[in-house]
């Protein structure tokens, strides 16, 4: 497999702010790279450089072999961009927006219209096609924006925080659209501050913070990098909490934590610990509402990599016992 996106040593400074301080990217053709980081980490700056909207101060980036600075027009033929804010025209209707972009991509009016109708259907917007987009809901706008970036059937699509501000059901909608895109062979570079989102969609994840790459791995590898598994126990009665804490102290590699007042969790180094916990709980007749063994969530990975409080992303779902 070849890398369709390659960037090396990208730096960018805005006044006193060092937005990027030497960032590398490598994205294989047909894969999804998740670029993960908190607000202000430099994600959008990186995407804007890769989309030819900004020049890097230093370093280079190539998309499909074209240099983003010196061969910008060739890069623009290759890419589709969906910005952080829906960049469709509010006064125009959905179909007018898409037809206009088709025409700008040198499709004939008939071709542009056909492609627009096709995409509107694909993104479930046919009924709203003739309405001004200012009447669209947030989710509909994102879908239209995504459709707009796909008109020219680009090889590479950049999605800059495609689900920020959407409710969970709409977020799932957008994820499914992205999965369809990937199935068609499109390479996707996705920025997000939702760890859950990168985990759900990306083949590889680059974590950036303060303009620097602080980790790059597969979602699994990233979890492994932080190491171990975690046992979580939630007893039925709060009175049992001390006994459970004592039990987990005996099997854990660290002092147990209380993620919730009625819950105890501890990292362990082997699956056998779970067997011991279950046996002891049964022997001591401690009833539990939840008992789980899981890999560390991306939240925890991120926390341990940056040393900063986690974002608003949800804690991984637990297996009810």
């Amino acid at each position, binding site marked *: 497999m070849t890398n369709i996106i390659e960037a090396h040593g990208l730096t960018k400074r805005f006044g006193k702010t060092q937005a990027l301080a030497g960032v590398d990217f490598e994205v294989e053709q047909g894969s999804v790279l998740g670029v993960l980081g908190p607000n202000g980490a430099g994600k959008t700056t990186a995407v*804007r450089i890769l*989309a*030819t*909207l900004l020049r890097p101060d230093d370093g280079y980036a190539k998309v499909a072999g074209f240099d983003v600075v010196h061969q910008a*027009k*060739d890069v*623009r*033929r290759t*890419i*589709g*961009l969906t*910005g*952080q*804010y*829906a*960049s*469709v*025209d*509010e*006064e*125009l209707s959905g179909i*007018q927006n898409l037809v*206009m*972009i088709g*025409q*700008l*991509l040198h499709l004939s009016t008939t071709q542009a219209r056909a492609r627009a109708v096709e995409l509107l259907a694909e993104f479930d917007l046919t009924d709203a096609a003739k309405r*001004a987009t200012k009447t669209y809901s947030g989710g509909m706008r994102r879908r239209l924006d995504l459709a*707009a*970036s796909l008109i*020219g059937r680009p090889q590479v699509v950049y999605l800059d925080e495609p689900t920020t501000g959407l409710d969970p059901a709409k977020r799932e909608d957008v994820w499914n659209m992205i999965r369809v895109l990937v199935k068609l062979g499109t390479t996707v570079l996705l920025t997000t501050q939702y760890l859950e989102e990168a985990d759900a969609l990306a083949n590889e994840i680059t974590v950036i913070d303060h303009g620097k790459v602080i980790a790059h791995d597969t979602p699994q590898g990233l979890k492994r990098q932080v190491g171990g598994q975690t046992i979580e126990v939630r007893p039925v009665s709060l009175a049992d909490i001390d006994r459970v804490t004592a039990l987990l102290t005996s099997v854990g590699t660290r002092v147990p934590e209380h993620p919730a007042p009625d819950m105890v969790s501890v990292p362990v180094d082997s699956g056998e610990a779970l067997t011991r916990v279950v046996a002891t709980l049964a022997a001591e007749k401690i009833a539990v509402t939840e008992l789980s063994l899981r890999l560390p969530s991306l939240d925890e990975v991120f926390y341990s990599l940056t040393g900063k409080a986690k974002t608003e992303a949800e804690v991984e779902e637990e297996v009810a016992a």
Partner: protein
Amino acid sequence: MIRDSLILAKRTVTKMFRSPEQFIDVTLQPILMTTIFVFIFGGAVAGGTSQYIQFVLPGIIVQTVMFTSLTIGVNLNTDIQKGVFDRFRSLPISRSAPLVGPVLGDIVRHTIAIGVTLIYGVLLGFRTDTPWFHVLGAALLMIVFALSLCWVSVLIGMLARTSGAVQGLSFLIVFPLTFASSTFVPASTLPVWMQGFVSVNPVTHVIGAIRGLLSGESAMAAGTTVGGEVLWVLASCVVLVGIFFPLATWAYRRKI
């Protein structure tokens, strides 16, 4: 570049017809201005409304077209803030098309502004004393001037941070240009120190040319001819475009 610009010009026109409030400044505003000036100042300035309208209407048309040409900076600034320009810039299109397109699309607004003001003026008693093609020539000249002047607004739209600031700065430019000219009163009545500016102000020459084209050379300031004023206007258009088009495209590339 022409094809891309025309597609984007069509966008501007489509948007215009989808938000009718955008027509207020090219319909109601000139009607209001004409009414105010003719009936309030007419008696005092020219001794009667019918004499004054013959003098002031060309000035009001030019002023309306100037105001119209300066709204483009506000619209472009809003587009940039909304991220629409990011999309355009990520497409393989001509670099200046996102600026040239809206400028061309505004021809529709200028045409409406000129038509509405002229028709309303005729209803109030304005009379043209020249052949029809002179009237057409006057309209074309104003549109050419508007398309040149609007690059100043495009530049402001690229440089200012908010669309409110664009609006404020634009008015700061239009007011001295329109009032320190022969728009509302004959230039000979102005103080001498101001006449220096008035005589090089392109707006004075636009209005001179328009008065000549609509009412004949007898309506023009002494010593000026239609041909001379038209040349003056075309020369100032070349200068305006020559300076502000490169500056605006430079600011555009720098901004985004």
